[in-house]
C-alpha cells in the first residue's frame, strides 16, 4: 500500500496510543487537521493494507504476572520447517513464531517462538508436553528464559 504524507502524520500521532475519550478519532483528526471520517477511513485502510498489524491493547506481560517469558529456539531441518512452524504457531500458548537465519557455527537455531507463563516450571512443562504431542522429539531446541528487561519501548516513527 502507498502511504501519503497525511498517513505519516496520522501514524506519528497515534503511535503512543489512542486518546481515552468518547470520540478518539475526531480528537486525533483535530490535532492534525483531518476530519473524523478521514481518520477512520485511513486507519481502516492501513489495517487492510497490513501497515497496522493490529489496533488495540498492547500488554506488558511482566506486569500482568507473566514473568516466566521463554524464547524457545529450534534447529529444524529445512524440509520440516513448514510443518513445524505451522504446528507451533497453532498452539494457544505460543504468542510469536518466526523463522530466522542460522548463524553457523555459533548459532544453529532457525525457528523462534515465545511462550509466556507465570512460573518457569509450568512453562517447561508446556514445552515437554508440546514436544511429545507435536512429535518434535528429534528436533534440537533450547529454552532461553528472560532475565532483566533493560529497555522497552515501541519503535518510534517520525
Amino acid at each position, binding site marked *: 500500500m502507498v502511504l501519503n504524507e497525511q498517513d505519516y502524520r496520522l501514524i506519528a500521532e497515534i503511535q503512543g496510543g489512542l486518546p481515552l475519550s468518547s470520540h478518539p478519532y*475526531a480528537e486525533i483528526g483535530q490535532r492534525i487537521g483531518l476530519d473524523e471520517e478521514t481518520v477512520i477511513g485511513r486507519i*481502516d485502510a492501513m489495517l487492510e493494507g497490513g501497515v497496522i498489524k493490529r489496533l488495540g491493547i498492547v500488554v506488558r506481560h511482566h506486569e500482568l504476572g507473566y514473568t516466566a517469558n521463554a524464547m524457545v529456539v529450534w534447529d529444524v531441518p529445512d524440509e520440516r520447517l513448514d510443518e513445524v512452524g505451522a504446528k507451533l504457531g497453532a498452539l494457544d500458548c505460543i504468542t510469536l513464531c518466526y523463522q530466522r537465519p542460522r548463524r553457523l557455527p555459533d548459532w544453529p537455531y532457525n525457528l523462534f517462538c515465545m511462550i509466556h507463563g507465570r512460573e518457569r516450571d509450568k512453562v517447561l512443562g508446556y514445552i515437554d508436553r508440546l514436544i511429545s504431542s507435536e512429535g518434535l522429539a528429534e528436533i534440537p531446541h533450547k529454552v532461553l528464559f528472560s532475565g532483566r528487561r533493560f529497555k*522497552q519501548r515501541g519503535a518510534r516513527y517520525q
Partner: protein
Amino acid sequence: MSPEPDAIDRAILNRYQGGFPICERPYQVAARELGISEEELIRRLQGMLEHKQLSRFGPLYHAERLGGGLSLCAMRIPADQFEQVAEQVNAFPEVAHNYARDHAFNMWFVLATETPERIGAVLQEIEQRTGFRVYNMPKLREFFIGLRFEV
C-alpha cells in the same frame, strides 16, 4: 505491585488485543459488548495504563511496510562486562528493547531503524562501540498465530 486484574479487566484484555472498533464512539461500542458503561471502560483502561499492565492502547505497526527496518539481534557478553555493554547498547536510540537471557547468547535486543539499510550501519556502530560481535537475526518468515495472549 499492580492490582490483580478482575474479571472485567481480564475480559477487556482478552477481547481487545486483537482489534478495536473503528467508528465514531469506539469505547461505547466496546463497552456495550462487555456490558459496562463507556466511562467505566475508559476508567479501567486508564487504570491499567497507569499500573503499566498495558504498554499502550493503540496501533502495532508493521515496521517493514512503513518503510523501516526491524531486526532481532543477539550478543555474547562476559558476565563481568554485561552491565557496561548493556548501557552502551541501550544508548542507541534504534534499540527498541533489550532483554537479558540465560544462555551464552545472553543479550537480545530489537533494532528499529527508519530504513532497512540502516540496520547494518547501526550494527557496525554497536560492534565498534562495544568491541563484541552482534549477530543479526532478522525475521525471515512469520508463522500464523491463532490466539492472542490470554489472561
